[in-house]
Each structure stands twice: as C-alpha cells, then as structure tokens.
C-alpha cells in the first residue's frame, strides 16, 4: 500500500508541476491552496466551482452581446471581460486571465472578428482548465482513499 501511495503522490506532484509549467496556473493558485485548512477543507473546490459558474454566465453574456444583429455593445462585452479577468486572476487561472487581457483590448478597439475569435478561445480555455483541475481532484481523492496524504507541492 505504501508503494502505491508513494506512486500516486509522485504522479500528483508531477501533474501539479505540469499545470504551472504549461501556464494553466500561477502563484495565485498557490495562495488559494495555502488558505485551505481543517477549518475550510473544501475551500479550493468551492472557489473553483464558483469560478467555473462565473465562466459559464459571463461567456454566455458575451456571446449574446456579440450576437446582436444591430450594433454590438462593446462596452457591455468589455464589462463582462473585466469581471472574468478579475475572477480568473483571483483563482490563478493564468491562461484565462491572459486571454481576457487581449480580449479587453479588442473590445476597446471595437474589433468584432477579434472579439468573436477571442471568445471562442476563452470558452475552450476555461473548459480545458476545468477538466485538468477535475483530474487533479480525482488524484487527491485516490491518494486519500489509498490511505495517504495529499502532498504540498513546491513549485519553485
């Protein structure tokens, strides 16, 4: 059992490191993890759940705003991008945040095609992140079920 736990823990460490190395996560995610303790054992999962609900809502708002047959309200699109940038920054979703920075500039330039392309990228990116973090939580669950402790991963 110990060898199995050790193997799972190693797999977990490597997986977390890869998420940072590939730019999916940044230091703010580390901050988030550091706030989780016995008093708030599900905090990270709760915050991420709120974030992904936010993504669904805001991407939907942006899609509707860009789907207008008349004049597109780029201010409205920009306001939603601003909110998504804030929440992605707060959870350490680095790639989503980066896309939002570009997206904001495209809104200010009233670049319709650019905005539509960027929205598609944001949609793909948050869903990709969601799947990757689900794999992370599944690994944590496997470690605990095997009788082990989820290791702290030093990303430096």
């Amino acid at each position, binding site marked *: 059992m110990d060898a199995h736990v050790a193997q799972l823990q190693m797999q977990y460490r490597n997986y977390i490191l890869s998420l940072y190395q590939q730019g999916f996560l940044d230091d703010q995610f580390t901050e988030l993890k550091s706030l989780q303790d016995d008093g708030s054992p599900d905090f990270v999962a709760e915050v991420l759940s*709120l974030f992904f609900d936010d993504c669904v809502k805001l991407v939907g708002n942006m899609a509707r705003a860009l789907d207008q047959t008349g004049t597109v309200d780029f201010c409205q699109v920009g306001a939603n991008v601003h909110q998504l940038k804030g929440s992605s920054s707060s959870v350490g979703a680095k790639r989503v945040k980066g896309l939002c920075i570009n997206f904001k500039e495209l809104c200010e330039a009233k670049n319709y095609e650019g905005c539509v392309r960027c929205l598609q990228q944001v949609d793909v990116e948050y869903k990709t992140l969601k799947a990757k973090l689900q794999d992370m939580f599944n690994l944590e669950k496997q470690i605990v079920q095997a009788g082990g402790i989820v290791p702290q991963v030093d990303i430096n």
Partner: protein
Amino acid sequence: MATTSTGDIEKTKSVEVKKKLNVLIVDDDPVIRKLHEIIIKSIGGISQTAKNGEEAVNIHRDGNASFDLILMDKEMPERDGLSATKKLREMKVTSMIIGVTTLADNEEERKAFMEAGLNHCLAKPLSKAKILPLINNLMDA
C-alpha cells in the same frame, strides 16, 4: 469544571474574549467575495458580504452596523466603490476602508478613489501577505 488526574477540581479560569476583526466585503464577483471571506477567516476575523456599493450603504443606514474594516471593490453595478465610499464617509462611518483596484486602473483613477475617503488601496488579487500588515496596524490602534 475539569478535573486533573489527581482528582482535584481545577478552578475555572476566567477567559478573556479577544475581539474578532469584523469585516464587510463589498464586491460584485462571488469568486472574489468567497476568496476574501476565507482570507479574513484565516486571520481570525469574521465577515459579512455585500454585492455592490448600494448594499454596503444600506447595511449602514440604520446606524447599527459596526465594522472594523470594509474591503471595497471599485467597479460594481448599481453603486460603485468610489460613490459608496463617499456616501459612507458622509454617513460618518469611521471603519477602515481599503479600496480594491485592478492593475489596469491608472494613477488618476486610484487617486480619485483614495480621495473618496479610503484609508488604503490594494490591487487585486488580494492575499494574506498584502492585507495582514494593514490589519495588524488596525488591531494595534
């Protein structure tokens, strides 16, 4: 009352109740409200939340609200952080108010926010490291 292993009755100790930091978190983003709630909890505080500046003002209207600290987001619907801060100061609210801005805000915007009545301004995302020195000063005062 607890008993020791020898069976002696231990005298009840008087316990000094330490005042918990009481914080109002004002932000339209539920993700950020949750994050700030946990940061405050992690440093031993308690918090209440408001979804925008108008809610924050309404919480204070009956004169009974008493927060040590208000974390005020800048951009919110219905009433933004600048307007809410001005209004709270007009209502003689003396809580420490920390404005929470984004890196995109320029110097002029931050200055205007400070002049509305903030004690401090911090950029998102907030962290324990950013907020703790300000709170320590508040608790020492």
